[in-house]
């Protein structure tokens, strides 16, 4: 099977042709926003952790290298600890255009904005000349994520997404699942799917380390809440099995490192990978984007109207009321499973078809609204050191 994507250097392929206007920290964000203003395909982003948040560097580099990005303009105030030049050198290894605007260096914010605006327009004009070409589906990398989960998520949306994951992997494509907190209680099932002993140890550590982070004495988190029980979830095992169901049933090849000094991208060759990181929606999506994910399939019970700066989001709801209320914000209706009208398999196939269409350029509901949310997760190296997880 094929989709129509944009060829990039280093034998990569993208599903979008975005010009990224990245303020290296929040000081330069308003200027970056104006530099991108009014230019089709230009998306402004930043990380909101301040100008010495070196832990965010691998993520910032990773998203700029993502093949959905055609080129990157880095915007700096000039006095950041997180300097744009070394960032630019790393990003340039992807063989795509990278430019830097330094506001203090230019000496006038207005002139810097005008200069940045010209650079973005230039990059966007060049990107626009690129045509989509047929690409084998095996080159596609899809992330799976859930949020705003309710009773229907574990019955309809997540299992249907799991069918899609299996179908993608069977065509040679890659699938990534993050959110280790959701896997606490599903250790045995996931470990049994490890492709080898090394992958099994990675999976057990991925879950075990996350449990330690959320059970620090005095700052512990309840993994089961009243809403879970009222929704019908009886045990943590059941809750977690429902959540990880979106990864399907295929073998797990390993866990991708996502650390302050080391972010592993999805290796070529297809298959299912887990990724280190947090479960919080946008942070998790950015981590997946930094690992090279093209499209994210998002299961939601309550609905939600956001997009992501790098990865188009295919939103799937299993809740008939949410579908009735918010269908214009949803991409695939899985609620027919709850109504007994559709099988999980048939909805899984529909999600697969939607992902292939989006890979070829179909706009998602979030993109139609022009929503390009972005947030960067910052691991706390002090917590990792205190817990002995380094």
């Amino acid at each position: 099977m094929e989709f129509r994507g944009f060829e990039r250097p280093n034998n990569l392929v993208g599903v979008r042709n975005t010009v990224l206007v990245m303020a290296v920290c929040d000081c330069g964000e308003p200027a970056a926003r104006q530099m991108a203003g009014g230019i089709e395909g230009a998306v402004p982003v930043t990380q909101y952790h301040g100008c010495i948040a070196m832990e965010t560097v691998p993520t910032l580099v990773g998203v700029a290298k993502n093949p959905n990005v055609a080129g990157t303009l880095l915007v700096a105030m000039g006095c950041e600890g997180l300097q744009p030049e070394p960032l630019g050198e790393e990003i340039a290894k992807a063989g795509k255009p990278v430019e830097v605007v330094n506001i203090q260096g230019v000496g006038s914010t207005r002139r810097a904005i005008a200069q940045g605006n010209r650079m973005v327009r230039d990059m966007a004009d060049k990107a626009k000349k690129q045509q989509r070409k047929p690409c084998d589906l095996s080159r596609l990398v899809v992330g799976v994520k859930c949020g705003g989960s309710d009773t229907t998520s574990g019955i309809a949306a997540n299992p249907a997404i799991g069918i899609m994951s299996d179908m993608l992997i069977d065509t040679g494509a890659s699938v990534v699942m993050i959110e280790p907190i959701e896997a606490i209680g599903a250790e045995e099932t996931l470990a049994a799917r490890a492709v080898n002993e090394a992958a099994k140890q990675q999976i057990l550590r991925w879950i075990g380390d996350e449990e330690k982070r959320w059970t620090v004495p005095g700052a512990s988190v309840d993994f089961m809440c009243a809403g879970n029980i009222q929704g019908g979830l009886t045990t943590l095992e059941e809750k977690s099995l429902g959540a990880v169901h979106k990864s399907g049933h295929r073998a797990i090849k390993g866990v991708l490192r996502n650390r302050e000094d080391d972010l592993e991208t999805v290796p070529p060759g297809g298959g299912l990978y887990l990724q280190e990181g947090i479960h919080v929606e946008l942070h998790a999506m950015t981590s997946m984007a930094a690992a090279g994910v093209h499209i994210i399939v998002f299961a939601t019970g309550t609905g939600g109207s956001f997009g992501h700066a790098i990865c188009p989001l295919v939103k799937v709801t299993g809740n008939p009321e949410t579908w009735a209320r918010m269908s214009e914000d949803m991409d695939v209706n899985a609620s027919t499973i709850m109504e007994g009208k559709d099988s999980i398999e048939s909805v899984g196939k529909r999600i697969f078809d939607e992902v292939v269409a989006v890979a070829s350029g179909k706009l998602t509901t979030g993109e139609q609204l022009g929503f390009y949310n972005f947030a960067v997760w910052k691991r706390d190296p002090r917590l990792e050191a205190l817990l002995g997880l380094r």
Partner: protein
Amino acid sequence: MKKAIRMDEKDNVATALVGLAAGDEVEVISSNREIIQRVTARDALPLGHKIALTNLPEGAVVTKYGAAIGKASKDISVGDYVHIHNVRSDRLPLTEHMLGLKYPGREKG
């Protein structure tokens, strides 16, 4: 007929796709939408909650998604409502507070 879904062929519970009343005849379907069996609900239970497909003596493994989700903490019969009042986790015991929660179908505790 009201439906419940069995997520995996190894499962001994099904999840109600609509709220059930005691005495309801329930059609249990697979993820492929094939009819697998019929059970009579012995209790009322809400959408998303579970009904037993087999008798589960105390200590028996309760299976959903093809994997263990806990063990029966008392004898369970076909058609019984399956939830925290008769299943316990092997992974994380519920706190007294959680066990005392009122939930739809168990308002009386």
